[in-house]
């Protein structure tokens, strides 16, 4: 059913289909009459049969049949024979409807529904499926149904795995078969079925298998999809891990008060410019976790006088799970004017679900085969690319190299492939203009990873503000401007940042920026941010004082596409937070409700917004109302 060109309708065909439509219309109106009057007589049901066998797409008719079956079942409650014949008849109707159109959702669903009533031999279903899958081996309805049948008859997953193998051997361009294989293997690995206990044993064979497909025909997508899944299985660590935190465990923290002293500041990354009575502790995990609280996280600190730290997840959609957790540590009074070294230590943080254990032996061997596998894959694809020019091959190589770097990073920061990867993405942008935005995003992520990979490169991008009263005491500004960044990443390496310059990039969104809890100055000027909703992460940055979003495209687009791009649509949060703490909704708020929503909780003293389409006098006056602490707006001092 795939790869067949569609032919235009011949005039006689068109006439035939018009006649068919006319006949259907008659049938349909009769049927609807029956349906509305709850007529479940034999003739009425037969009418619906006739209708469905010509047009299986009629959902209403399927539902009518469900009602009819239920009606009949209540009538013949006691008799198992008649029960069976009723259900068998339904199965027959579905089958002939599927022959008409085997991609009919309604028909497949009706079949499932009948089976749920029992009284059918499930073996028959497999036989039927074999027929349908022979007719079209990539019919995803049949595959879905197959999973359902296999589950309900407790067919072993190993058998189903063998089946996918057979299907793939017949024709390896069968994405459905590969997909089912990944589902089955995931389950088998999760349940640790015999023979599927460790990924180390299972995955190499799968790599070998998928290589045959990819190398035989690199133009076929199915194999590549499966390879991507395998790569994910190889790289992914099952238990959540604490990737980084601020302050780093065991570090000495130098707190600088308002009147900065040039103490014995050793590293800029542990120096924190304090202007309030509290400072944050941030935990950054490799995946969203739940249940971080004072009983699962122990904080050892001289400051930690108050035992009941309240950990808050930094998520935009009020979920209980988040990658970033933050708490505020209160400073003891009277210490703010002098710098002091406070040793802070987070020890063995435990989430509610998993033990966040330090690397043990098991994980070390695990690491070895993972790294070896990735290295082997890299060699294979380098060889392939030496023969042919293949876009997805390049993309895969780039992903593999990044996975390799990420894996090698903790123990030995030896050779980084980021230059090669950047080159690959540059190539891809040229070769594949349709997906240029994706490649650009990936390019940005790699670039950020490269910049943040070591202290030297980070330091080279750190500057003191020239107008700062003291060069030594004030926090440094990390400059990531003019890098053509379209997406942000590597936040785990940037938790220490207090001043960040992201100007002159191509940012449309600043997703993930909420992790930088220490941020007090943020420059996003000269990007392509399209609306206030794109700034949503800023709501979580409680220490932000200065924000520059000048020369973006806020207000330039009548339709706010960020709503669809961002993983956390703003509308969710709006609904839940709109009502509380609300004083007056005046006209300004109504017209600028997005800006209001983003800015209202912030305590900005300095704000630049010039060069956006939204800016006018009315908006400015609105801003002054919303941000009462504002001292500077677009470089002008306010009274």
């Amino acid at each position: 059913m795939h790869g067949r060109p569609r032919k235009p309708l011949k005039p006689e065909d068109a006439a035939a289909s018009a006649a068919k439509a006319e006949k259907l219309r008659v049938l349909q109106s009769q049927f609807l009459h029956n349906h509305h009057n709850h007529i479940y007589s034999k003739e009425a049901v037969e009418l619906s049969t006739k209708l469905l066998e010509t047009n299986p797409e009629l959902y209403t008719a399927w539902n009518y049949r469900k009602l009819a079956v239920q009606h009949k079942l209540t009538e013949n409650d006691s008799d198992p024979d008649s029960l069976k014949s009723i259900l068998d008849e339904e199965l027959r109707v579905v089958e002939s409807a599927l022959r008409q159109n085997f991609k009919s959702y309604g028909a497949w669903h009706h079949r499932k529904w009948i089976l749920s009533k029992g009284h059918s031999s499930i073996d028959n279903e497999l036989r039927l499926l074999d027929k349908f899958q022979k007719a079209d081996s990539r019919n995803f309805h049949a595959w879905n149904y197959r999973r359902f049948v296999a589950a309900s008859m407790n067919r072993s997953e190993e058998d189903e795995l063998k089946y996918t193998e057979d299907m793939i051997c017949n024709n390896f361009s069968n994405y459905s078969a590969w997909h089912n294989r990944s589902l089955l293997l995931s389950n088998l690995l999760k349940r640790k079925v015999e023979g599927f206990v460790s990924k180390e044993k299972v995955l190499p064979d799968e790599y070998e298998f998928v290589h045959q497909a990819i190398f035989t025909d690199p133009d076929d997508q199915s194999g590549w999809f499966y390879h991507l899944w395998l790569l994910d299985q190889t790289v992914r660590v099952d238990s959540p891990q604490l990737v980084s935190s601020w302050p780093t465990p065991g570090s000495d923290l130098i707190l600088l008060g308002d009147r900065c002293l040039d103490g014995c500041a050793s590293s800029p990354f542990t120096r924190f410019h304090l202007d309030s009575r509290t400072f944050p502790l941030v935990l950054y995990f490799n995946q969203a976790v739940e249940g971080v609280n004072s009983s699962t996280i122990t904080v050892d600190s001289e400051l930690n006088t108050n035992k009941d730290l309240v950990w808050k997840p930094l998520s935009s959609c009020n979920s209980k799970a988040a990658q970033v957790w933050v708490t505020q540590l209160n400073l003891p009074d009277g210490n703010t004017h002098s710098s002091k070294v406070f040793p802070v230590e987070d020890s063995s943080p435990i989430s509610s679900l998993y033990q966040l254990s330090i690397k043990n032996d098991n994980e070390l061997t695990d690491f070895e085969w993972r790294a070896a596998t990735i290295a082997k894959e890299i060699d294979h694809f380098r060889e392939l690319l030496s023969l042919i020019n293949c876009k997805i091959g390049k993309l895969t190589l780039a992903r593999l190299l990044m996975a390799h770097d990420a894996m090698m990073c903790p123990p030995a920061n030896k050779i980084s492939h980021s230059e090669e990867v950047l080159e690959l993405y540059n190539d891809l942008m040229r070769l594949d203009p349709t997906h240029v935005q994706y490649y650009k995003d990936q390019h940005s992520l790699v670039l950020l990873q490269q910049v943040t990979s070591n202290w030297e490169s980070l330091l080279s991008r750190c500057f003191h503000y020239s107008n700062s009263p003291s060069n030594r005491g004030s926090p440094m500004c990390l400059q990531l401007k003019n890098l053509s960044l379209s997406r942000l990443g590597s936040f785990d390496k940037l938790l220490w940042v207090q001043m960040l310059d992201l100007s002159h990039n191509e940012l449309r969104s600043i997703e993930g920026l909420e992790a930088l809890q220490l941020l007090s100055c943020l420059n996003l000027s000269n990007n392509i941010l399209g609306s206030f909703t794109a700034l949503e992460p800023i709501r979580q940055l409680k220490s932000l004082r200065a924000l520059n979003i000048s020369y973006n495209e806020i207000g330039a687009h009548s339709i706010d596409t960020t709503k669809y791009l961002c993983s956390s649509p703003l509308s969710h949060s709006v609904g839940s937070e709109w009502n509380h703490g609300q004083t007056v909704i005046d006209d300004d708020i109504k017209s600028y409700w997005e800006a209001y929503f983003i800015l209202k909780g912030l305590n900005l003293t300095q704000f630049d917004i010039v060069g956006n389409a939204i800016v006018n006098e009315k908006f400015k006056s609105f801003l002054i109302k919303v941000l009462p602490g504002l001292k500077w707006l677009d470089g002008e001092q306010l009274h």
Partner: protein
Amino acid sequence: MQRNNSRDAAHRRRWQRCSTAVAATTEMRGAAVVMQKTETLTKKEEHLLLPNAAIAIVPLPDATAPAHLPLLCRQPSAQPPHPAHSFGGGFRFYHLKELCHLLRSTNSFEAEAGRLMTGNESESELPVPPYPPIEPTAFDLIVIGTGLPESVISAAASASGKSVLHLDPNPFYGSHFSSLSIADLTHFLNSHSTPSSVCPDPLYSDVEISNYASRLLSQHPRNFNLDVSGPRVLFCADHAVDLMLKSGASHYLEFKSIDATFMLDADAKLCSVPDSRAAIFKDKSLGLMEKNQLMRFFKLVQGHLSLDESEENDVRISEEDLDSPFADFLTKMKLSHKIKSIVLYAIAMADYDQEVSEYVLKTRDGINRLALYNSSIGRLVLMFQNALGALIYPIYGQGELPQAFCRRAAVKGCLYVLRMPVISLLTDQNSGSYKGVRLASGQDILSHKLVLDPSFTVPGSLASSHQQLQESFQAFSLSDNKGKVARGICITRSSLKPDLSNFLVIFPPRSLFPEQVTSIRVLQLGGNLAVCPVGMFVLYFSALCDEVNQGKKLLHAALSALQKLLVTGTAGNSSTAQSEDMEEAKPTLLWSALYIQDLSLGQFGSIISTPTPDGNLNYNDLLDATEKLYWKLYPKEELFPETTSSPENSEDDAGLTLES
């Protein structure tokens, strides 16, 4: 279980066919009863018709009677064979429906059939049947020999409304394309390889038949259908299949797919031939890069073929490349040595060593052969779900093919007479042109045209004494003594590959010995094709050669290579000492026949001579030649025009039956 059932069904069908076959032969005998001798042979003629004499020189009685032209037969045993032969393995044949076309006298039919059905067929008791008279005595076309080319011609001529008499001196259909029992094959080869004064140049020579298990084989006298012109398979998209579908002959045939192709690699191991996308995917011996290269090459070929020649495109292979040797082109495509020989010898089926020989395949032809292979795979997949590969083989042997065309001809009114030798040609005394034939029965039959099987030749020397004939028979002079094909048949007890029974094996040039310049192709068939008892296997092999010694060397090398493969193949199976003893007691190789066949192309004069079986795996070249002969014969007729196709074979591709 299911398999057994289908085999039973096949046996049943077979039995039904056998009983109708009995009826058919009976019909001919019944006709014989009413025969009247119309002419008596002169004393001289009788002399010339002594056993083993195939030549008859008939003096010209008067100016008005047709001249008798001497006919030299490459088959010395032109005397009527013993009727017992008619029950040899290869004899079968009409549906009752078709019999109606043939059956004129039904009186003796039942009695005869009854007698025969009771199994009273002992050789000595049956008298040599008298010859039936043939009516009418004039036809548009007489065809002698029932090989595939002759059968196609008679079927086509009958289909286009010509009256055709189809004769065969043999008691079975198929001539040199038949499938025979061991005894019949032995007899056939021996009788066609004995040189004599009248037949100095028989079609076969150097026949070596060895029987290592006569007792075992004699238990299965009827269970073998050995192809005389093996190894032969059909490419699913080839000309033969098209013709069968067009003519309706496909209704009488059932096919099975050949499961795989293997090639002898440098380590004398059989490696599989990755001939399709799925096969490349599954292949375990190719490296990932080799897979990629091979698949890209296939795609290049496909891309080339899918584009119009007029189109200027990068995808098309350049004219310069098309005219270059295929081997060079493959090298240019950076294919490894192993893949190169796979493509050359196992897919494009090149006959000669492409590195050194003068018979170099051009890229253009190589690509066309790949195209045939590729479309065969596509067609097979289209027709039969889950059938892999490109090749098919008819159940009951290749001899079914000529029979199917003969049946088609019979349905269209062609008259068949087997066991009827022709002793001389009749020519017009004045013009010297062909008039008719004189049968062994003495009856003269006239026709406008004559088609002869390659066993027969009209000697040029004799023709030259007749001034008028010289010109018309120049075309018949034996100009084709150039090539030979060495053929071998083995019956074994074990398969070369433990898990497969029907497959092709290629020994590419120089894989067996350094002087091997031609590729040897081996076809193994198992009991499920009804060519041998279940549990046994028939192996056919052939190679082109220039002369007999070279051919014998090829055959012996191939035979010993096969035996070596058989030993290594079975070594894994017999682990215990006991079974080793058993193996010793029962040799793996049960029977073998090695023989060398002359090659000749078809000839056209006022008499058509059809080509001998060629050295190819399929019938493409043969049928192309046959089609040309037919066009010469009837320039205005199309070979099986589409319009004549009856509604029954309008289903096109579905008309081909494949048993799974």
